[in-house]
């Protein structure tokens, strides 16, 4: 499904990685490992098409993502360091807008159900500026529940989350993989998904 061949990326003058190749198939999960500054985020952003690779190609369903463009974006979901939520809007509005941006019309009921599953019962209509850092991350992660994307690209999804939320994310990832989804992620915290083989990619 996702094939990366001979990828090279640099930021400024500094070469982050080169000759990177891997495949990701349906139902597989891969963790990108490496020390700070080794290019984990740059790799994920290259996979999203934000950064142009110096060399190499990223192929999705047999076609380069450069050519697929919007067809590729319809099938992927990216969650970066930034939560992409607005302080002035409520958790509910934020979730419905971000679902709308990814091309899904979300009914209020579905959005509330998703927020409740993320442990935000009673906080749905509060402006997100009064929520804690972890709760805001939960609002952002609620997108995982309402998305029908095949490929999840998660950059440090567990930052600011408590033990309960981490368990919930592991559960969500396991569900997604069981439905033939794919996940590629980075984290510095341990993340265990029951019943699947965790592939790792080390950047050095």
């Amino acid at each position, binding site marked *: 499904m996702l094939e990366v061949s001979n990828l090279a990326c640099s930021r400024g003058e500094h070469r982050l990685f080169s000759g990177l190749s891997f495949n990701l198939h349906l139902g597989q999960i891969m963790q990108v490992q490496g020390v700070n500054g080794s290019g984990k985020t740059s790799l994920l952003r290259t996979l999203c098409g934000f950064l142009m690779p110096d060399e190499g190609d990223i192929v999705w369903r047999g076609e380069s993502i450069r050519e697929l463009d919007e067809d590729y974006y319809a099938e992927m979901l990216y969650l*970066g360091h930034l939560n992409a939520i607005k302080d002035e809007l409520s958790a509910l509005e934020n979730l419905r807008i971000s679902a709308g941006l*990814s091309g899904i019309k979300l009914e209020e009921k579905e959005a509330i159900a998703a927020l409740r599953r993320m442990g935000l019962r009673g906080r749905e209509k509060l402006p997100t500026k009064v929520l804690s850092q972890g709760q805001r991350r939960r609002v952002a992660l609620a997108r995982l529940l309402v998305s029908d994307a095949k490929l999840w690209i998660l950059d440090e999804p567990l930052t600011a989350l408590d033990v309960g939320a981490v368990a919930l994310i592991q559960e969500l990832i396991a569900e997604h993989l069981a439905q033939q989804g794919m996940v590629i992620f980075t984290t510095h915290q341990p993340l265990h998904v029951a019943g699947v083989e965790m592939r790792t990619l080390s950047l050095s």
Partner: protein
Amino acid sequence: MKKSTMLDLLVLVIRRDLVLAMRRRADVLATLIFFVMVVSLFPLGVGPELDMLRKMAAGVLWVAALLASMLSLGRLFSADYLDGTLEQMMLAPQSLSMLVLGKMTAHWMVSGLPLVLLAPVLGLQFDMSARALGVLIVGLLLGTPILSMVGAIGAALTLGLRGGGVLLSLLVLPLCIPVLIFGTGAVEAVSSGLSVASHLSLLGALLVLALVFTPWVTAQALRISME
């Protein structure tokens, strides 16, 4: 779960930006008050000679509108850039140009349209005739969307730069000169008894041109700024 169309997405972006503007009213009011202040300073500074005021009315109103619309341009993309929403917009399964067009439209409704509505009231301070006021409004209605659209290109190019605000004005103001010339030209044509149609049609042509090209150019500039 239903899939949304391109039009849904456009409406979504416009509504979102309008809701955000309503919740940050101070920003919107600042632009309006700036416009009113600048325009009102001229009669005070120049003195109450009606003849002179009538002559400079169109120019003053147009320049003030131009400067006021510069004020809010810096915020057009920067908030979305800082909180990561812009990344998500680029990953939307619809064309980024469409989203950009939505943001431009919302920006005009918040910072351009109120200026158009206020202009006739301010024009009275300059003793403008009813017909001149009418032409001024039509000119501003055609011209202010162009300011928002051309401004968006500058805002996208200067995204994330330090001191981007000044650079933005330096980039965008020269590009707005044609709008200024035709906008004030139309009002002057009224007072000298000439036809206003040519000026207004040229403004209309500029508007169509901007509508076709600026969303795409802005989208490309945003992609460069995100690298």
